[in-house]
């Protein structure tokens, strides 16, 4: 049965991830009083790309070809070990704790960068170096956030953290949790490429992640895109299920149908977060590239304040 749940979880992530992105794109256009694409547009894009032929740069190595597939694999694995639709560990969950999950995210990002560099395109190099220099500062903050949650729950297990936060209001309403939330939200914006940090245009002055897949075509590009959709989806799910709304995530006792129903609820939760992102993307203007580091400094300040608050209030 648990294996079935794992299987359902992967299928759910694979299927729902493009939908969330589609909703966000459509919503942003609607807010700006435009017609906007269909909610299902990412599916159409993927279907079209899968049918097309892949062209590979002459001088690239096999890394370029296998990169996108490896990335999708990593994210599918992450979907099995993190609490996306269940609040109890599934069979693969013991293979990595929260920090291990963070390392998997890092590994996927590293593969992405390697394959982008391997395309030998100037734009891809530009995007890679920018993305790497941001990640250098973003990763320690992520680790600090995980450590703070570890301090609260005395463990690094995301499922236990979920239990602690949903069952003890004194932690849920504590300053530590508040600061961790603020820091994690800011990091989320960096990781998923939302507006104050990155815009979805191809202007070369500001693009970061946009620049990396410039040489990909056809099925390779489709896999690449699917990978980034899944990343966004999983990160948002973790943020929702573990940090901000840990309530109502099904336990083992909820049974099969409970989990199926929760999938719908989960999509609604994601929708709420997506609305916030869409509002951000339509109202905030982009930072200059070097200002992003100041932004990260603020995120670090919140994460560090969380640890200070823990000690001061203790």
């Amino acid at each position, binding site marked *: 049965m648990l294996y079935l749940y794992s299987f359902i979880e992967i299928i759910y992530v694979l299927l729902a991830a493009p939908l969330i992105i589609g909703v966000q794109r459509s919503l942003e256009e609607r807010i700006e009083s435009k017609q906007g694409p269909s909610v299902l547009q990412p599916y159409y894009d993927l279907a079209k790309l899968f049918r097309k032929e892949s062209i590979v740069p002459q001088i690239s190595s096999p890394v370029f070809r296998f990169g996108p597939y490896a990335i999708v694999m990593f994210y599918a694995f992450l979907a099995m070990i993190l609490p996306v639709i269940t609040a109890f560990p599934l069979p693969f969950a013991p293979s990595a704790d929260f920090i291990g999950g963070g390392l998997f995210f890092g590994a996927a990002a590293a593969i992405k960068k390697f394959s982008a560099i391997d395309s030998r395109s100037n734009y891809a190099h530009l995007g890679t170096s920018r993305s790497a220099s941001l990640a250098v500062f973003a990763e320690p903050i992520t680790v600090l956030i995980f450590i703070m949650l570890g301090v609260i729950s005395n463990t690094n297990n995301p499922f236990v953290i979920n239990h602690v936060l949903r069952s003890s209001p004194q932690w849920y309403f504590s*300053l530590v949790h508040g*600061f961790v939330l603020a820091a994690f939200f800011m990091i989320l914006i960096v990781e998923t490429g939302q507006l104050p940090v990155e815009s979805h245009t191809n202007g070369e002055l500001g693009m970061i992640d946009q620049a990396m897949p410039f040489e990909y075509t056809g099925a390779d590009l489709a896999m690449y895109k699917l990978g980034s959709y899944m990343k966004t989806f999983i990160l948002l799910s973790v943020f929702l299920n573990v940090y901000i709304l840990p309530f109502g995530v099904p336990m083992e006792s909820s049974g099969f149908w409970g989990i199926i129903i929760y999938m719908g609820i989960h999509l609604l939760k994601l929708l709420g977060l997506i609305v916030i992102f869409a509002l951000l993307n339509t109202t905030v203007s982009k930072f200059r590239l070097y200002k992003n*580091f*100041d932004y990260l*400094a*603020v995120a*670090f*300040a919140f994460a*560090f*304040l969380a640890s*200070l*608050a823990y*000690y*001061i*209030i203790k």
Partner: protein
Amino acid sequence: MNQTFEILGFLLIVLTLVMQWEINVQRIIALFSASSFVIALFLVLLGLSRPNEEYMLFILAGLTIVVRGITIPLVMNRALNRLNDKPWRVREAKPLLGVGGSILLSLVLIAIGYFIYQNSLYSVLKVKSGSVPFALFLQASLLIITHRHAYIQMIGFLVMENAVVMLSGWVFGGLPFIVEAGVILDLLGLVVVSSLIIRVREHSILKVGDTVESELRG
């Protein structure tokens, strides 16, 4: 109740942190006004938690709102408007520290405030999380040291005063009303006088150029 105070205290710390990296003077004034309102809220809550202490704390909260929250920012903004054609563009010209540096230093100061408090005063005062006002005090002094713009220095001083109000209320249960009222009056006078000085100072800087440092050495 203590938890509410902690939240307010950290709110003040975050507001001061924002002042630290903000360079636009008008926005800093607005932030100071906001932090004064937080202090007033703090005083009201303090008054509610001590019902036997009459209504002095509520009067004090009202005075805080009127003087620190409204009048002082108003005086400063008016002086700013009179001095500049485009007051919204007045800013710290060459910040001594960038955003990252100032944030890091502030965080270090908060940590230092905590360690000093925990190792020296906690055993005597026995007030949990009493290091918050001390951290605020240290941050305000950082604000004064790292900024050259006269208004920002002035606001650093006022934030320091806010920290003292918080300290006296939280840790010791407040000063006598007559003293607090005198302190607030002093502050008002100080702001008026220093606005005058700042106005003349900016005029002369505009006229002569950079400040004459050499005559004030040694």
